């Protein structure tokens, strides 16, 4: 009797495990089926490097270069802001902060991660966007720059918590060894602890960036959504994600536009997959040492 119970539970867990992989494969296949249909209408090069996105003109122009650049501008901007601050914050939490402040900060970071993106987008729209408009004296504050700042807030919790884990798991003996040689606290941090945690920190950055690229709601609300090739970070842009979210509701199922949106989905999927694989590579490199 006990054996049968054991057997059933084991199989049940096995199927649950399989199911998650199965669903991923199903989603991917659906994405491929719908997205690749586009190739019968426009070529892959024309699609990826095409400079205009006018999906409802006649005939539709389905070039996503402006959208890719939009995502790129916002992502790079967010990375420039969030990576240094995030790493510094992780170093402070892991190495410098007294126990009490550490707890408060960690809770704060978790809270930041818990804010729904639509709320962040809303706050950004009300505060950040007018501020950017006035600061640079530009016609609209709905720019890639505003999006970058807002997304930096969203990438920060990921970067801080994973980088902090990486720093924390550096063996204490390295730190002791450095201090015993007469290194100061800061020398110990930047000469021993940071290099020893570097692969974990790279993984943290990659996952943070992955979060930024996939983010939709906040960017849709504050980047202005102009599907034109941006010349500076102070212009409105439209990201890949925002395009899908904004246009999927108004497209006819089976139309060229519809297939194009799925193809954008494939592009996003490939990008985040690449980022996850890279960060995974760095995380496991850490374990090999």
């Amino acid at each position, binding site marked *: 009797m006990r054996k049968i119970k054991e057997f059933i539970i084991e199989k049940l867990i096995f199927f649950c495990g399989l199911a998650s992989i199965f669903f991923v494969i199903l989603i991917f296949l659906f994405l491929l089926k719908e997205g690749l249909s586009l190739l019968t209408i426009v070529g892959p090069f024309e699609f990826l490097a095409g400079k205009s996105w006018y999906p409802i003109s006649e005939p539709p122009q389905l070039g996503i270069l402006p959208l890719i650049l939009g995502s790129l501008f916002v992502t790079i901007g967010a990375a420039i802001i969030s990576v240094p601050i995030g790493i510094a914050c992780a170093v402070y939490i892991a190495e410098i902060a007294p*126990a009490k402040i550490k707890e408060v900060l960690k809770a704060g970071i978790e809270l930041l991660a818990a804010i729904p993106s639509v709320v962040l987008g809303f706050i950004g729209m009300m505060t950040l966007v007018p501020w950017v408009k006035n600061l640079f004296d530009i016609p609209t504050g709905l720019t890639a720059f505003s999006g970058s700042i807002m997304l930096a807030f969203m990438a920060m919790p990921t970067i801080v918590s994973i980088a902090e884990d990486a720093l924390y798991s550096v063996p204490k003996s390295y730190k*002791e060894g450095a201090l015993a*040689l*007469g290194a100061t606290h800061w020398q110990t941090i930047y*000469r*021993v602890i940071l290099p*020893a945690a570097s692969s974990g920190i790279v993984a943290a950055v990659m996952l943070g960036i992955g979060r930024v690229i996939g983010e939709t709601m906040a960017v849709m609300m504050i980047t202005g959504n102009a599907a034109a090739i941006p010349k500076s970070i102070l212009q409105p842009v439209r990201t890949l994600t925002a395009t899908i979210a904004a246009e999927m509701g108004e497209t006819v199922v089976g139309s060229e536009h519809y297939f194009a949106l799925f193809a954008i989905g494939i592009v996003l999927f490939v990008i985040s997959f690449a980022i996850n694989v890279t960060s995974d590579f760095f995380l496991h490199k850490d374990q090999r040492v």
Partner: protein
Amino acid sequence: MAKIEIKNLDLWYGDFQALKNINLALEEKRIIAVIGPSGCGKSTLLRVFNRMNDLVEGIKIKGQFVIDGENILDQRTNLVTLRKKVGMVFQRPNPFPLSIYDNLVFGLKVHGIKRDLDPFVEKSLKAVFLWDELKDRLNRSAFSLTLEQRQRLCIARLIAVKPDILLMDEPCSALDPQSTTGIEDLMRELKKNFTIIIVTHNMQQAARVSDETGFMLLGELVEFNKTEVIFTKPQDSRTEGYITGRYG
């Protein structure tokens, strides 16, 4: 005057008194062993020499601890200078995850010596008899070395910054008997230039390498004398009980 003089040293971790009224005077250029069962406070005592205990929260130290005429327990003590002078070797070899070369120059760089480092590297590797083995692969990771080589590298890394005193906290407990012999020979060699204080719970090791031995029990320094006296005619019955293996 003695190189190191410890007077009425008490140490607490919170409410727990780990060292009780330690008094000790040590001469330079010898090997001093501190033995005793686990938890007797020998590692704690060793970590007062370079103030590594400062990392522990809730620690309180009283008394005098004078090295070369300076009380290192003074608040004004410069820890960087102190630790340059008093180097420490740990229980498990702990080279940094860097190349052999970078491990060796780490201390120098930290102390502001940034140029012409090669002679230092050669000299300190020669001092631990690793030069011939490693001179052609200085850029390899320190993790490519055997445990014994790593421990030697850690000692070489200290020697590069020219300390006076070497603290060794169970330096052979992670090594096999053959490597242990190697490290012990090295210690005898290093005695010519350094004062070495070794903590060990391997009594035979203390008997083999040290000139003087102190026996600690429950935070007290029970007895301190020439090594042969401690191991042949201990004055205190507790010491006798420990070295004859009645407890510990």
